[in-house]
């Protein structure tokens, strides 16, 4: 029986996974305290819709850094990586994601996970209903062009949501149904602002903004139970453990608030959900029992971007950020990608330094000078396709602690990424398919450009992998640490691979839903119902 003010469950991080665990357990009557490094932002007040203001990563609203934006961001030491997107704040990276919510490719789960794909399906269904995930019925011109290209390139429609072979489909998005022209007060207004923070429809309550980041869905639902407290501006610096009956048992967490004051919070169960960088960082900084897998096996889907310019306008700034996709299980996926002009310039034309290559593109790599300006003048005629590759979970790609750099909390994470030759080959195949789709859709062949982007950290996964045996992973098939009782993980770090290339958030949330049930079963009993917080 927990003592006064000792929660049943302490969740570290209220992003895509942590908020799910918090809501699911609080709904069962358990007392939940959640620590979140950032603030709880108010869309109507804080989401300006401006690209640099929201996404610049240095002093922007969405960034990895203190709530006080006059202070620099928290440092990360990157090796083999370009930009690294992490977001402090309730919602985490779902604050700026596109809401794209496909399931993992079944073959990827069947091959490498300690649980069957079929076991995940009811959890997928629960998350899809809760968010909800919606297949939109009105698509934007950019996405219509993408679909036209897919069909002309010979791809068939695949109905989803369980995808076993190649084909195109309308993007399942965690975005409310498209609003009515007669009353655009509820639902998606197709404003194109998913990545810079959804604040529409105008005047909507924070929990009714169209995109269902966990800031608008799971976190408000957790609070509504009356059993969950969210402490913002609180950064976990140590996981506290003790020995009980000869076993390592979690006791709680030490954390700093935004003013630097240090607290310790005990709990029966601790759930780490800071993401694939911060969770191994916290584990290592805490000196928790070692495993050769801690921090290893980082995957990122090593994005590339291929663009084409059309004789007609395709409107990259309108509609949900991505409303169509083509799946290639085993290689990854392609999707139409909306962007404002700054993101278009950085992603499409700010790639690697140009190098000779053969392919169905006219140019490749960075575009500078007048060439950049001419291409950007064709912005409204430009369709960008994202290539997301199923990259190998290599032990050479890892998160460790920097021996030289630290922030006010701990040694900084040192993030190393190394792509295997097989990963590079898959990525090349995807980029070629993207170029073929653009040409088939009517893009001017001489305009086809491949960014050849260096690896970046957007879909970070896999550094605390799930495995049945301690020798093969950090957490078991319930996502409880092999090395510490009562310590669970509910973020992208438990994913044993890159899901075959599919966007990870829905799978993170399905696994987190399953983990919440396992926590209740193992530590609190499935029938326990409590009147309120302890």
């Amino acid at each position: 029986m927990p003592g006064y003010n000792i929660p049943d469950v302490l969740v570290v991080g209220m992003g895509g996974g942590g908020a799910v665990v918090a809501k699911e357990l609080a709904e069962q009557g358990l007392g939940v305290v959640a620590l979140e490094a950032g603030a709880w932002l108010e869309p109507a007040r804080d989401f300006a819709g401006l690209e640099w203001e929201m996404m610049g990563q240095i002093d922007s609203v969405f960034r990895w850094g203190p709530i006080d934006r006059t202070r620099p961001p928290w440092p990360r030491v990157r090796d083999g990586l370009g930009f690294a997107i992490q977001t402090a704040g309730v919602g985490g990276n779902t604050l700026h994601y596109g809401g794209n919510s496909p399931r993992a490719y079944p073959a990827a789960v069947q091959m490498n996970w300690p649980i069957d794909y079929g076991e995940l399906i009811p959890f997928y269904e629960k998350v899809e209903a809760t968010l909800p995930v919606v297949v939109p019925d009105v698509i934007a011109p950019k996405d219509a062009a993408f679909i036209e290209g897919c069909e002309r390139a010979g791809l068939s429609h695949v109905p989803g949501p369980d995808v076993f072979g190649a084909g195109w489909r309308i993007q399942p998005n965690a975005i409310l149904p498209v609003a009515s022209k007669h009353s655009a007060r509820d639902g998606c207004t197709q404003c194109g602002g998913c990545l810079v923070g959804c604040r529409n429809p105008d005047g909507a309550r924070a929990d009714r903004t169209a995109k269902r980041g966990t800031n608008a869905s799971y976190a408000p639902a957790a609070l509504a139970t009356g059993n969950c407290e969210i402490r913002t501006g609180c950064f976990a610096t140590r996981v506290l453990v003790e020995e009980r009956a000869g076993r390592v048992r979690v006791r709680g967490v030490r954390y700093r608030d935004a003013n630097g004051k240090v607290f310790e919070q005990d709990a029966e169960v601790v759930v780490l959900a800071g993401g694939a960088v911060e969770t191994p960082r916290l584990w290592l900084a805490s000196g928790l029992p070692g495993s050769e897998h801690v921090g290893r096996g980082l995957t990122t889907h090593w994005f590339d971007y291929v663009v084409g310019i059309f004789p007609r306008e395709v409107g990259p700034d309108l509609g949900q950020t991505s409303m169509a996709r083509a799946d290639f299980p085993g290689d990854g996926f392609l999707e139409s990608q909306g962007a404002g002009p700054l993101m278009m310039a950085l992603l499409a034309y700010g790639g690697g330094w140009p190098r000779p290559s053969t392919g169905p593109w006219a140019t490749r790599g960075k575009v500078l000078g007048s060439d950049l300006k001419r291409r950007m003048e064709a912005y409204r005629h430009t369709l960008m396709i994202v290539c997301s590759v199923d990259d190998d979970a290599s032990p050479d790609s890892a998160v460790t602690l920097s021996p030289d750099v630290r922030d006010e909390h701990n040694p900084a994470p040192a993030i190393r990424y190394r792509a295997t030759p097989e990963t590079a080959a898959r990525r090349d195949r995807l980029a070629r398919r993207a170029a073929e789709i653009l040409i088939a859709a009517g893009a001017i062949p001489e305009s086809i450009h491949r960014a050849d982007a260096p690896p970046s950290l957007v879909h970070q996964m896999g550094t605390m992998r799930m495995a049945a045996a301690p020798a093969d992973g950090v957490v078991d098939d319930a996502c409880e640490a092999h090395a510490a009782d009562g310590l669970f993980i509910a973020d992208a770090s438990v994913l044993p691979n890159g899901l075959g290339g599919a966007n990870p958030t829905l799978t993170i949330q399905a696994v987190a839903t399953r983990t919440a049930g396992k926590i209740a079963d193992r530590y609190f009993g499935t029938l326990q119902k409590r009147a309120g917080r302890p």
Partner: protein
Amino acid sequence: MASPERTIAALAEAVIPSPPDDATAGAGDVAAERFVLHYLTFLGPELPVVLAAALDGVAAARQGVAFEAGRFEAMEPDDRLHTLRMLGEHEHSDLRDLAELALVLITAAYYGEWTGQDAAGALTGTPVGWDLTGYGGPAGAVPGLLA
């Protein structure tokens, strides 16, 4: 007189050229170096000097001459871009990252919202990059795409 500000302005102008090298307004016309200097200084007060020195140093190496402040600024735009690439492919990752950061900041100054904002950050005009790309800025509802 060489200065980090002038060196960075020369870099920005090569990346996004102004008339007479290009038909439309460029980085020089919007003083993009102010934006770059602000953010470099925010991240580390020494970074503007380090970037300028690195560009001058690589420029000297490229030309096979001794280091001299202002050498980068004196180059033709195409040579500046080649020099930037050398910095971007430098053996030291810190210098590679600095070159990439400078490019991001120049791009953001021009294609982001900064040129339409007042000193308090309010959007009071159309940013030059929006004007040249036809981007309409943040939208509410898009009537033609509703159900």
